């Protein structure tokens, strides 16, 4: 893997965005542009994933679904134990942060796809299902952890039931999750000629649009750098260590359990290593209003996302190659 393989346009645009922020440029994308690109990209991954899935058998997808649930439930618990045990982080902040690490980042996933595409590596269709699934269990487990924390702290738990139902709804009706799932459905059912008519928009120009998205994410990450001090050394380290821990789980599951190719293992690893910034933050804001959003947002957008995009993805790919003995 040479240095030029790191010169993926998407990653360079991420760096451009961060650089602009660091030198205090006035570069800024309209907020609606970000939303539009996210909508577009989610539909794009969904359609493509749905189409790809119809080429495989539904039964083969089951282990991926299982792995998604395993990650979505296991990783937040692991994160919670680390945050409480090693970091002495207060229980509710620990719960809120943990939930983010059980979930995934569609942006990181797409960057990984762009990375693999850039070096011509193919991959299985199933990781996209995991992407679609993983956001929901993490939300629920976050709520469970918060409830447990409150009980430990001896606080009021009144109204918790209503919150469970509310978030359960939320976990399935959240706009981004819905868009991803339904687009997968649409991709799976439309005929090939129909699909070819929308392919130029949703696939051919996808990788370019992703660059705009990552440029914006770079600016966002750059903005969050200034909050490192407020967040503290432990949490910043956690924001790098946790994806590595997730990555190890991902590599194991992807290689030994799911038995995917190098590309597929890389994607599974990226999923396990990444953390959410789409559906989980608003859910935790609602479920754990006592937690400080600047903690989980700084970790998610300012530490883990940039780490994964710039260092993580090639690293995980290298590890996947090593495991496969390539």
């Amino acid at each position: 893997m040479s240095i030029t393989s790191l010169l993926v346009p998407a990653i360079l645009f991420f760096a451009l965005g961060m650089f602009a922020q660091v030198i205090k440029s006035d570069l800024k994308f309209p907020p609606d542009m970000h939303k539009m690109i996210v909508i577009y990209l989610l539909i794009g991954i969904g359609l493509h994933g749905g189409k790809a899935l119809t080429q495989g058998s539904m039964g083969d997808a089951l282990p991926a679904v299982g792995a998604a649930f395993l990650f979505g439930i296991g990783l937040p618990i692991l994160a919670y134990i680390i945050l409480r045990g090693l970091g002495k982080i207060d229980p509710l902040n620990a719960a809120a942060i943990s939930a983010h690490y059980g979930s995934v980042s569609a942006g990181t996933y797409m960057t990984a796809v762009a990375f693999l595409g850039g070096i011509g590596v193919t991959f299985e269709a199933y990781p996209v299902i995991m992407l679609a699934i993983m956001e929901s269990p993490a939300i629920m487990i976050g709520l469970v952890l918060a409830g447990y924390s409150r009980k430990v702290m001896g606080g009021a738990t009144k109204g918790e039931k209503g919150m469970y139902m509310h978030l359960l709804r939320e976990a399935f009706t959240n706009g981004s999750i819905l868009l991803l799932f339904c687009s997968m459905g649409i991709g799976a059912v439309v005929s090939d000629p129909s699909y070819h008519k929308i392919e130029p928009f949703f696939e051919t120009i996808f990788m370019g649009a992703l660059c705009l998205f990552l440029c914006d994410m770079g600016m966002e990450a750059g903005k969050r750098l200034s909050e490192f001090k407020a967040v503290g050394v432990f949490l910043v380290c956690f924001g790098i260590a946790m994806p590595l821990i997730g990555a190890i789980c991902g590599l194991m599951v992807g290689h030994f359990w799911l038995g995917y190719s190098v590309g597929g293992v890389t994607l599974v690893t990226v999923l396990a290593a990444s953390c959410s910034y789409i559906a989980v933050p608003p859910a935790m804001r609602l479920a754990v209003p006592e937690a400080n959003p600047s903690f989980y947002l700084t970790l998610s957008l300012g530490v883990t996302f940039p780490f994964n995009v710039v260092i993580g993805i090639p690293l995980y790919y290298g590890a996947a190659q090593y495991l496969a003995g390539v």
Partner: protein
Amino acid sequence: MFNRADVLISMIRIEIVIDEEKLGDLIALLRTVDVRGYTFMRHGGGLGSRGERRPDDIALEERNAIVILACEEKQAERVVMALRPKLKEYGGMCLMSDCKWVIGPAASY
């Protein structure tokens, strides 16, 4: 303030800040007490008892709506009394102050 009854009518100005998502509920509530005019602006931000609310945040967009309402004193009392229990639930803020309605546009208060 120059005081001419043919130009100015004494009124109450009510200003409410509330989560943007609750704006629909608030307006429905205002309708139940027969409010005949209000103005709102969406896309506000702020700080309150529940912490900061930032519009246009990439990951955690929270917006406030600001509602301005001019009405006569009697009506103001009805509005405020109807609002108070709801505001306890919604959070936000409600301010009242005296003002003069400039006679000219069609009366909608």
